[in-house]
């Protein structure tokens, strides 16, 4: 299937043109219910006899738990039980198993779950929390990621060496580093020796929060035979099942995960165990009662996860003509108190830390470091935004210093079809250059801007998690309609619609005849996760394979009825007919009826896992089944008196391979750019002594609809040889290049380079004032404004 040698298209241009459903933008499967307000979310789900669970949280960032007295809470009328960490000798975690269900022995961050209460109603549960007394002994906390990374720093996890972890994860025992990711190519010292100029910069990013409108929630029921059912808004039911079963040391079949039909936003935040852990802890103690835990908005900010804050030192060696010969990147990701997805975020950050560029000498080190702060985890871009902020900001620093056009500098180094990636993989199906060019063309890159205005561009790449599998079943029913059984979750990204389109196209039935079931691990087959922009590609392939399997069975049944060879049969609009003879059509329902009477059904199955070149034993392969690529441009206006930044317009071009649902792809671009805009200009989880200071939509400055400027979404299509109809993922690319594009535009407008996100007016004004002072001081020789890079070309 896959080879390293370039494109061999499975879909020819002819078949792509003949598509009837794929590539159109039919009404989304969830649109009508969502508009009516009748779409079902976890909050709407109630189970008979259900209790309400609430969580007591740590008030200290780092403290030993000396005692917990819950006796008064247990006696409160309406309370059905209190559970503490000491009762649950289990740890969970995806790639590094380090997190208790409730804190045991010590708390590692302010907001960590210490005990949980189940009561008949929410008010009683909240009241009971106030009756629990916990005695702590404070321990020295670590808030600074660079301090925490030093040898000899106090340890957040003394037992790091004993934790289980996936292959390819490299914790450094005796330190707070839970993964050290390394990438080497060429000889970095040799590269710097060959360079005429060496650029060294440090860039930082803050914690960003997902701000899903729907908070985390779960209902858990466990019976006396250790059979556990969990209704949840987790993004990946099979991954969730595995994590719970492994932690509780029970077989997979003892755990049933039922995902809510709709999840109100994910952006990476709904993986792992959050409300799931608290609900499961309560259910583990209080058997035979379903217990629901819904996070508050404050718990979302303080006790779920956010994007890793980061510090990146980037050093780049360049020849006078602008050729980049060496790049060294050292990134510290602040993981907070637990590893969560941090070790693999570090990996993905590192894989793309040098940017999507041909550079002969590269050295990358990414450290994922424990501190006593809110846990960081997966968030849209998965290490990409931290990396891109550094490498794409520095590209413009280099261009400005050498008097080069930032656009030209990027195009000169961007990967092309057939190039060797710094990981050693040969690049194929690469739409990066086209993305950059499309943005430049749409934003009229060379058009001079008036004083105070500027434009910037940035591009990006990101790996797709590889190799992981996805499976699907399809049931063709007696009336010719189709049910898809797939564990891909609908988190608002539109997967349900896209999978229905793929199934309808492949079988040759109308879209309305296809339905997709909500995930339930008891019925819907394995899928590794709804993450990493992998669903359209992986699950799309699985559904397509399952439908192809069902279709071949239908055609076999139809062949004798139509007195034709199987190979000559086609299906269109739900009717089977010999090629070129649509008048001899026989509906699928009839075909099934003739063979099976009223019991007609055909079952198809599909399992897709990318075929890997023979290579290492690593958990994540070096080879990526595809790379996500894209580019973004921004035009801004900066007020020199106030430092205020007005983003006038943003252009975003991203490679979707083949857009199954173009309007949905545009929605992904719009939403992603809004997330990027927030990180660029205003979003920052602020903490004092480890406590989150702004855990609300009032105090955390996520952009509102009024703050988002006009966005021009541009879909680039470089078909993937193995993608369903050529499709690749694209949702997680869209936010990544936005902050550097905006920062580069600010530099173009007023010559100010900010290294620390978010770029707020106070930071801009401070630099503007400093520059004005410097200019006033050095007025004697002819004062030179920094050259506006690439201007007027």
């Amino acid at each position, binding site marked *: 299937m896959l080879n390293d040698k370039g494109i061999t298209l499975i879909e020819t241009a002819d078949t792509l043109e003949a598509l009837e459903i794929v590539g159109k933008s039919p009404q989304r499967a969830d649109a009508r219910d969502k508009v009516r307000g009748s779409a079902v979310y976890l909050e709407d789900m109630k189970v008979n006899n259900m209790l309400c669970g609430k969580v007591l*949280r740590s*008030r*200290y*960032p780092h403290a030993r738990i000396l005692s917990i007295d819950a006796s008064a809470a247990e006696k409160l009328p309406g309370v059905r039980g209190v559970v503490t960490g000491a009762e649950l000798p289990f740890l969970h975690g995806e790639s590094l198993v380090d997190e208790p269900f409730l804190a045991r022995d010590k708390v590692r961050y*302010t907001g960590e779950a210490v005990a949980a209460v189940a009561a008949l109603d*929410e*008010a009683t549960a*909240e009241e009971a929390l106030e009756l629990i007394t916990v005695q702590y002994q404070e321990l020295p906390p670590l808030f600074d990621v660079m301090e925490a990374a030093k040898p000899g720093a106090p340890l957040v996890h003394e037992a790091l060496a004993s934790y289980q972890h996936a292959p390819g994860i490299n914790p450094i025992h005796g330190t707070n580093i839970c993964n050290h990711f390394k990438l080497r190519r060429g000889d970095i010292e040799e590269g710097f020796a060959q360079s005429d100029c060496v650029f060294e910069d440090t860039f930082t990013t803050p914690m960003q929060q997902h701000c899903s409108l729907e908070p985390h929630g779960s209902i858990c029921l466990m019976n006396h035979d250790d059979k556990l059912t969990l209704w949840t808004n987790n993004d990946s039911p099979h991954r969730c099942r595995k994590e719970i079963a492994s932690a509780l040391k029970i077989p997979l079949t003892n755990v049933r995960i039922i995902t809510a039909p709709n999840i109100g936003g994910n952006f990476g935040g709904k993986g792992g165990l959050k409300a799931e852990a608290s609900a499961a802890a309560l259910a583990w103690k209080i058997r035979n009662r379903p217990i629901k835990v819904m996070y*508050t908005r*404050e718990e979302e900010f*303080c006790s779920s996860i956010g994007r890793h804050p980061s510090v990146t030192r980037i050093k780049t060696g360049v020849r006078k003509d602008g050729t980049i010969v060496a790049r060294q990147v050292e990134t510290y990701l602040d993981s907070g108190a637990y590893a969560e997805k941090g070790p693999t975020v570090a990996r993905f950050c590192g894989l793309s830390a040098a940017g999507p560029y041909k550079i002969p000498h590269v050295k990358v080190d990414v450290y994922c470091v424990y501190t006593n702060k809110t846990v960081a985890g997966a968030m849209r871009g998965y290490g990409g935004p931290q990396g891109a902020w550094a490498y794409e900001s520095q590209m413009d620093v280099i261009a400005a210093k050498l008097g080069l056009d930032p656009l030209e500098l990027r195009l000169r180094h961007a990967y092309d079809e057939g190039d060797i990636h710094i990981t050693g993989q040969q690049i194929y199906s690469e739409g990066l250059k086209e993305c950059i060019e499309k943005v430049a063309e749409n934003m009229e890159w060379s058009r001079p801007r008036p004083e105070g205005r500027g434009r910037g561009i940035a591009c990006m790449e990101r790996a797709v998690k590889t190799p992981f599998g996805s499976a699907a079943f399809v049931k063709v029913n007696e009336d010719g309609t189709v049910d898809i059984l797939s564990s891909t979750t609908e988190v608002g990204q539109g997967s349900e619609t896209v999978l229905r389109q793929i199934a309808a196209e492949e079988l040759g039935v109308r879209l309305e005849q296809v339905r997709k079931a909500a995930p339930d691990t008891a019925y819907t087959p394995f899928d590794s996760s709804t993450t990493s922009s992998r669903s359209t590609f992986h699950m799309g392939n699985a559904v397509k394979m399952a439908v192809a399997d069902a279709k071949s069975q239908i055609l076999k049944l139809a062949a004798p009825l139509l007195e034709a060879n199987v190979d000559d049969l086609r299906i269109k609009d739900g009717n089977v007919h010999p090629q070129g003879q649509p008048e001899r059509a026989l509906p699928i329902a009839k075909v099934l009826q003739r063979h099976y009477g009223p019991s007609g059904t055909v079952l198809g199955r599909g399992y897709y896992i990318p075929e890997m070149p023979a290579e290492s034993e690593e958990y994540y392969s070096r080879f990526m089944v595809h790379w996500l690529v894209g580019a973004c441009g921004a035009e801004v206006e900066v007020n020199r*008196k*106030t*430092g205020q930044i007005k983003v006038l317009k943003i252009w975003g071009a991203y490679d979707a391979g083949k857009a199954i649902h173009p309007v949905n792809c545009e929605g992904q671009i719009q939403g992603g750019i809004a997330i990027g805009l927030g990180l660029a200009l*205003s979003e920052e989880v*602020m903490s004092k*002594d*480890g*406590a*989150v*200071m*702004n*855990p*609300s*939509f*009032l*105090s955390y*400055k996520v*952009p*509102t609809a*009024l*703050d988002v400027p006009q966005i021009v979404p541009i879909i680039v299509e470089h078909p993937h040889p193995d993608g369903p109809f050529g499709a690749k993922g694209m949702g997680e690319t869209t936010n990544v290049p936005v902050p550097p594009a905006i920062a580069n535009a600010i530099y173009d407008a007023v010559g100010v380079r900010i290294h620390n996100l978010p770029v*707020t*007016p*106070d930071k801009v*004004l*401070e630099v503007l004032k400093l520059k004005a002072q410097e200019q006033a001081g050095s007025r004697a020789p002819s004062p030179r404004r920094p050259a506006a890079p690439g201007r007027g070309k």
Partner: protein
Amino acid sequence: MKLPKFEYAAPESLGQACRLLESRGEEAHPIAGGTDLLMALKNRQKFPKMLVDLGAVPNLSRIEYSDADGLRIGAMVSLRRLAANPIVREKYPILVQAALSVGTVQLQAMGTVGGNLCQDTCCMYFNRSAMVRQSLEPCHKLGGCICHVVSSSEECWAAYTGDLAPALLALGASVSMAGPGGEQRLPLQELFSGDGKRPIALRPGQLLAEIQVPAAPPRSGAVYLKLRQRETLDYPLLGVAVHLTLERGENGHCKTAALAMTAVDKAPILLQEAGKLAGRKLTEAQIRELARAAYKRAHPMKNLYGLTTKYRLSMVEVYVEMAVRQALESAIH
């Protein structure tokens, strides 16, 4: 977070409401739109045993205007109704600016003029839920004896962040307070105590009933500018209101000038120095002098989320100059 339990009363006259509030003393709290109070209850910042709903009190929702008496706004007029009123739109556009800069559309629909004026002061250490606050010692406002903004201070340094107050102060508004001792009319600035723990100078049993704004004179212009990070939702990090009236004739002499600020002290500031401009021609030098005076009077603290205190202070002069120029422009045209 659930609301705590409380008694609820909905008196049908102003007198009844005042008597009820007086008899219950500190235990009772009036509620108008509830947009400020209900969050304080959910966050366990305030603990009233009884809420006295003013929704059923008649005559508190009127907007009246006459050239002789000017504008009279009932305390229960919602911010959106104020902004939609044709007279207000025509004669007091600064009130429309200020009302529509509050919170969100939904909050403007529920929030009232009286409630907006009487809102509690804000502090990032105080305006959080009990769950999040537990990691810090209780501050002055919660009955403790520490201020997290100025750790050595014996007083509370929360900021007054109402948007309507500076606009109304610049317009020279007064307020009527109903109470056990009968109705009392005061200049608006006397509503604000400057005490962070108890920022509104209403005694138990006293209610803000009406706001009066003098008739809009000809050749006047008024502007409210708000420093914020987003186009909606945010409290001001600085708010500047300027109201100018020009003398007849071409020379542009100032007849009256008023400047008020919000979010840079424990109470809204009505800058006395602005009055000195009366009778003088507004030159660049005078605008700068006024801006300098405002800068000296402003006292932003690290008590609000977002931009640095240093930046907020440095914006005082910039915003005052912008506001004066815009007010002048609108007075001329």
